């Protein structure tokens, strides 16, 4: 992999251009394929240009948390496998992987679009545990958006396994039942390089960025709602920039949602 000097990216950005000739508000080609891992209850492969991630949903029965005793549990976990980048190391997830997991998790949870009470089997005792594991297979930037799209595509693809008379999963079965979800939460990341704001940064832009903001959006009753936000990177952002970021994320969120419908 060739590493580009961040200074080069900054210079190009100053000229109002991007290294791969895209417009500032233009995503790379997004390809979503569902059902790529038949063993999983639900799965999806997502490609954002050369960034590639694979998400799999596995479902089991477990004990609910004490404070949400009538609700199922959904956990997103991103794994940065060493295959995906020379910078990724084997072992427990580092802070970057943890952040991606939690940001994607939050957009889905806080949108309240998943009906967690419908994932309860027996209050205080048994609920569905939905594990959404997302492997990054090739890192070419913008992992948060790629992992977010793959996670939601895999959730939409998932079919619940059968339960036996003791409410335990019958291994290897699938029913027609889906995970109850009434909309599509999407995480959209906008990066700031110098004074420019752009969507879907590739690896070079990701490495050169000053700051980024990820905004979770969903649509309900014809309105766009914001449900999560996360700033990253080593610079601050102004209120004016933030307002623009929210507008850009709102527009791009619509595009991604249309791909998932």
């Amino acid at each position, binding site marked *: 992999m060739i590493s580009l000097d961040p200074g080069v990216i900054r210079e190009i950005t100053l000229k109002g251009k991007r290294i791969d000739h895209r417009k500032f508000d233009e995503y790379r080609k997004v390809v979503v394929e569902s059902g790529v891992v038949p063993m999983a209850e639900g799965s999806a492969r997502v490609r954002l240009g050369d960034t590639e991630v694979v998400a799999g949903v596995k479902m089991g029965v477990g004990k609910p948390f004490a404070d949400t005793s009538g609700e199922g549990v959904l956990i997103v976990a991103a794994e940065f496998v060493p295959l995906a980048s020379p910078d990724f190391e084997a072992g427990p997830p580092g802070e970057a992987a943890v952040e991606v997991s939690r940001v994607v998790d939050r957009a889905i949870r806080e949108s309240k679009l998943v009906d967690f009470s419908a994932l309860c089997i027996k209050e205080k005792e048994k609920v569905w545990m939905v594990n959404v594991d997302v492997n990054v297979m090739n890192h070419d930037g913008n992992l948060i958006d790629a992992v977010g799209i793959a996670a939601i595509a895999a959730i939409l693809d998932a079919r619940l396994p059968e339960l036996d008379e003791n409410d335990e999963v019958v291994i290897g079965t699938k029913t027609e039942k889906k995970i109850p979800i009434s909309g599509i939460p999407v995480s959209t990341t906008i990066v700031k390089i110098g004074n420019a704001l752009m969507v879907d940064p590739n690896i070079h832009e990701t490495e050169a960025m000053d700051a980024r903001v990820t905004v979770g959006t969903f649509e309900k009753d014809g309105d766009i709602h914001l449900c999560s936000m*996360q700033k990253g990177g080593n610079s601050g952002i102004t209120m004016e920039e933030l307002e623009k970021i929210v507008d850009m994320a709102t527009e791009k969120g619509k595009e991604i949602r249309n791909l998932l419908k």
Partner: protein
Amino acid sequence: MEKQLQLVKNGKRIDGRAFDEVRPLEARVGVLKNTEGSAMFRIGNTLAIAGVYGPRKVFPKHQEMSEQAILRVKYNMSPFATTERGRPGISRRSTEISMVIREALVPVVFLEEFPKTAIDVHIEVLQADASTRCAGLNAAALALADAGIPMRDIVASCSAGKIPVTDSEGNRTGMQAVVDIAGKEDTEGELDLPIAYYKKTNELTLLQMDGITKKKEFLDIIKMAVKGCEDIYQVQRSALKHKYMMETEEALR
């Protein structure tokens, strides 16, 4: 369904605060003996202590940067800080919070002054009643200043959110943007938006949000959070001034 607790009465909040009023604040610097700099920050019932080591040699050495210092932040919540005991050790939550606090501080610290060194900031939350990352960050900024590490400004951090407004029957009539959600509001609050504010450049260096809102309401809530940061900034400044005034007086005595 349980009756909605009435969180807003006669234009005041359930604990008597105004909508834009943060809980009582207390800040002190130089509270620990073995660190180079330290601080305590309290907001209501939330209490955090921060300590700074360094600039010092970097271990492991491969983390070293030839042209600047590295800033490392560790946020930890004591197991006894919450109503139910927390599991000690690193969690996904603490890893993420440590990261966003570091990124909130980096813009103000002159890291380029100390190449090939590490500045380590350790934050311990001893008591948690909402806004622990903000309290931890406020303490950390003070501890860095107390350690004599040159900074462009002090970072102040505060959260804002919204709470339901109900009539006496418990029917919801609207939402109210409020600063520093805490106590009884915490479980009923519908949005949490912690920020950190770099006053000199008017920039946000930390920004997170949980909860549903729309653009216009979001902008109102964030203004509340900035106002909270302004109040906290003043308390941080006077804590630093107080310590150095005392030291000067002692030296002159």
